[in-house]
Each structure stands twice: as structure tokens, then as C-alpha cells.
């Protein structure tokens, strides 16, 4: 009997299987980390470090969108996630360099500061493995 409630529609590539399961779990961790960090920061003391807090919020959005795309599956979601992973990697590298060169711009850390050192460097490892995985699923 076909399972119409949980199974993805025929032809939609399932992205959450094998290594993709680990990937989606780690993205889930980063969603929780980035969303709670930016929500707390922005609601309590946004004026202290608006740049850092806005960047954390942007990171939270990227993580949430990629997680949703991975869970949804399919070719369109795969491409969208690929673009977002590239943007995420660019963000991590740019913010990482930025925090090293101009630390005075950041009175408080972001999720992506020092290439994500506060988050076990997961922020810089994730987009690379994500892109490799998404390319393989083509």
C-alpha cells in the first residue's frame, strides 16, 4: 500500500539519507544555535553590536532555509540548498576574516566569528560537506 502521508512524491530525490542524515542533524543544531543566539541578542541589547547581531540573524535564516530544503528534497530544493551553502561558506569566510582583521567592529561575537570557532568550526565544515553531498545527489 503506498504511503501517501509521509513518503515524498514519486521522483523527488530524497536528500535526508545516508550522510545526508548527519548533515541535516548538524544543520538542525546550527539552526537552534543561531536562532536562539540572534533572538536573545537582538531582543536584549541590539544597540551594543548591531553588525554582529544582524550577521547572526542572517546566519540563522540561512541555516533554517537549508535545513528546510534538505528535509523537503527534490531537484529545486537541492539547487536552492546548493546556492545557500555557497552563500553560507562565503559568509563564514568573509565574517571570519573580518573578525580577525577588524576585531574592533565586533564588540560581541557572531555565529561565524573566527570561522565558527565557538561552534566547533562546524560553520566552516558544514557548507563544504553540504555542497559535496548535494552535488553527489544530482
Amino acid at each position, binding site marked *: 500500500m503506498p504511503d501517501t502521508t509521509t513518503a515524498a512524491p514519486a521522483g523527488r530525490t530524497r536528500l*535526508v*539519507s*545516508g*550522510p*545526508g*542524515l*548527519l548533515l*541535516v*542533524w*548538524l544543520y*538542525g*543544531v546550527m539552526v*537552534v*544555535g543561531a536562532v*536562539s543566539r540572534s533572538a*536573545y541578542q537582538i531582543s536584549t541589547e541590539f544597540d551594543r553590536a548591531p553588525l554582529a547581531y544582524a550577521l547572526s540573524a542572517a546566519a540563522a535564516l540561512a541555516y533554517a532555509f537549508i535545513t528546510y530544503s534538505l528535509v523537503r528534497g527534490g531537484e529545486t530544493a537541492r539547487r536552492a540548498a546548493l546556492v545557500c551553502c555557497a552563500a553560507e561558506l562565503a559568509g563564514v569566510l568573509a565574517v571570519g576574516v573580518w573578525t580577525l582583521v577588524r576585531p574592533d567592529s565586533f564588540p560581541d561575537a557572531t555565529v561565524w566569528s573566527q570561522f565558527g570557532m565557538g561552534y*566547533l568550526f562546524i560553520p566552516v565544515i558544514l557548507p563544504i560537506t553540504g555542497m559535496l553531498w548535494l552535488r553527489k545527489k544530482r
Partner: protein
Amino acid sequence: MLDALTVAISVAALALAAWCGHAAWRDQPTKDWHFIGMAVVTVLVLAQLVVGLVKLARGEKPDEGAVIFVAYLLGAFAAVPAAGMLSLTERTKWGSVTVAAGAVVLAVLEVRLYDIWGTTGA
């Protein structure tokens, strides 16, 4: 009490990570025994959550603020069960890898919790 629990959970989490990592290395999915291990770790984290909230209710203050402390307590509580549920949907070694990763994240969260609580809670 809280410090002892934090240390116990870190050790248990790393043991769980090694155990599930071993299963992944042997190309095996998580089995019943692994889920019992996850349940033990989860019970410890639940105890930590309760002890943490009771300490807050008694008026003890974490160094870095109550909101962050509770956020990390909840995150630590969710880490292993979430990975365990995912591993039920993936009956391959990747399910085991995911639980191992979840346990490592839990151990790191325990270190952060220790920092956040600070020296006030002996």
C-alpha cells in the same frame, strides 16, 4: 550537585559517542542497547535540567545570566533524543554516526554549561 552531574553527563556522553562511533565503524545501525544507552544519558540530562531549574528558583544566579543558562539546559536535553529519533529513520551506519555526533555536541554543551554557571554553584 550540578557540577557533579555536569561531569557525569560529559563522561557518559563521550562514552555513548565512542560506542555509537564503534557501531558505525563496524558498519552497523543503532540497536536496542544503544537506545538504552541514550535513555541513560537522557535521564541524567533531565536530572540536570531539574536541578538547574530548582537552583534558579532558589535564587542562585548563573554567571552569564539565567536566560542563557536555561537555553543551554534545554539544548543539552534535546541533543541526544533528537539524534536518536533521526537514527530510527536511517537504519544504516549513518544513523550511528549521527548519534555519535549528537553525543559529542552534548559533551561540548556541558562544558559551556559549566562556564555559564560559573563558580557560584559548587
